[in-house]
């Protein structure tokens, strides 16, 4: 499972960085989205990978910490997902504004000279 997760994170991050460095705004936004997926999975994995271990302790129960997974990274990743979703949505608006104002989808607002 570790190998699979690491590979998928690597693939997401790699393609994310590549797209981020491309000259078209749509590629940039896809790159940011892919990168944030990679980062989110990474945060999730910092609590160590456990199968069949719930993060939340039931009230009044005798608690054996070893039977539970770390809830903090899961809380962190929720926050990170919400924030990156919101900022990506905002960036989408700026992208459209830029397209409308400059008439091109190049990140510098003008086509490079041939």
């Amino acid at each position, binding site marked *: 499972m570790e190998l699979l997760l690491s590979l998928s994170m690597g693939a997401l991050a790699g393609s994310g960085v590549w797209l981020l460095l491309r000259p078209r705004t749509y590629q940039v936004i896809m790159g940011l989205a892919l990168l944030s997926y990679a980062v989110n999975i990474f945060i999730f994995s910092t609590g160590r990978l456990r199968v069949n271990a719930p993060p939340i302790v039931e009230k009044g129960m005798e608690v054996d910490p070893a039977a539970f997974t770390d809830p903090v990274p899961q809380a962190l990743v929720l926050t990170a997902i919400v*924030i990156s979703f919101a900022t990506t949505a905002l960036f989408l608006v700026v992208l459209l504004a830029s397209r409308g*104002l400059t008439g091109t989808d190049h990140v510098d607002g003008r086509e490079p000279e041939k």
Partner: protein
Amino acid sequence: MMSAPSHLIIAPILIPLLAGALLLFFEDRERRLKDAVSILTSAALVVVAAVLLFRTGADGGRIFVYLLGNWPSPIAINLVLDRLSAMMLLLTAVLALPALVFSIARWQRAGAHFHSLFLFLLVGLNGAFLTGDLFNLFVFFEVLLAASYGLMLHGSGQLRVRAGMHYIVINLAASLLFLIGVAMIYSVTGTLNMAHLAIVLQGLEGESRFMAEAGAGILGIAFLVKAGSWPLNFWLPTAYSAAAAPVAAIFAILTKVGVYVLLRLSLLLFGSEAASTGFGEQALFFVGMATILFGAIGILASQALGRLAGYSVLVSSGTLLAAVGFAQTGVTAGALFYLISSTLTLSAFFMLIELIARGQDPAADVLAVTMEAYGEGEEEEEEAEEVGVTIPETLAVLGVSFAACGILLAGLPPLSGFVAKFAMLTSMFNPDGVGEGVIRHSSWWLASFLILSGFATLIAMTRAGISAFWARIDGEVPRVLLVEMAPVAALLAMTVFLTIGAGPVMRFLEAAAADLHSPQAYIQSVMEAVQAVPHAREVLP
């Protein structure tokens, strides 16, 4: 025991949050109301910050810890108020008030929800200065960045949207680095509380230590992007010069947030008594020096005043980063003085250049286009007259202010820019009191960079001043309103007061720097923070 006044610590976050949310319910047409509410809010923030500053300075320095949700420390997400954070809160508040007053004249009309965005920016700034939790810091950073994206685009126009897009992309990428760093540190320490982190890091060995240091390094890069350090800063001059004047005026403190976090974390986690002492100090020093150099060259090469100001921001944050990397108590105190002085100056300068450039050309054209786009061109003319009196002898007033900015930025006597540089240089060459201690090699380098960057600023400002005042091509005197000139004058007056009161201010900052360099008191107060006593407590048999 937690008495009622200690809730004042959270006021700098709650006041602008509530006011900003409230203003969302009103239409942008209700300008008078929005102006009044936001100016009152920032005035209240000045008062609150001053009270908090006074409290931290009382009885030989006190540190207040506020446990959110009343969870026990170190589980609780906490707010920590010490001298440094109180100082930053006050600085934010005194920058916000003039910028908002300045915006009354015309800028608030250039787009939607200016006031709410501005107040949310203050929420993020104050939160970032107060928080004692790494992930909470991320959240407040995002709040301030999200607000700043909106403000950056305020006024719209092709130039702003293009610069704003670069600004947004680089900051989103930096935020992802921030998350990676936080996650790496959490994975080996199991805590995000900064004070607790400092303790846990001391006990780390082997691979875990490398992991934590790698995480701290990645985290540091994220803050270096925010601080505008070379080579991560090519976006900054364009973005700052494209932003609307009152927005650029408050943005003057955004790079300082990055510097603040680097200063706090590097000394807390890797201070003199920690296990990996001095981690990253050298890197910060060299990056700071490179930033000064890049900024100085940029200043000399700038044609437009806006870009000149943008590169001055870089010189200022480069100086601060190098001073942080220098890691010596006296230099840190001088650097804090420099931080206050340069932030006030740059804020005044950004507003001033909009006034100067107004009579001339491109900036005014951009504004005119903007006004047209919002269909408010004619109305603007009428209301401008209604708002206030234009000031007489405009060029003389502008010229004097410009000269003051030049003197402050170059660090010439008699104003506070000189005091700041003098304080840094004195401690560099007298490490253990006057004439005592061994002078480090790096002192000579930093000293020469400081003086040369000041010289470059002087040349560039003189040249820009001559072309703006003595050799104006169109010879048209800009029409400047009193509400636009007063904020600039107020900020410059503050630097004068800072110069006159340099003694007490410096003593306060020396105490703040001493606290930073021996963080034991900080760690102890966080770890031993007492929970509030609930009003109705169950009595156990």
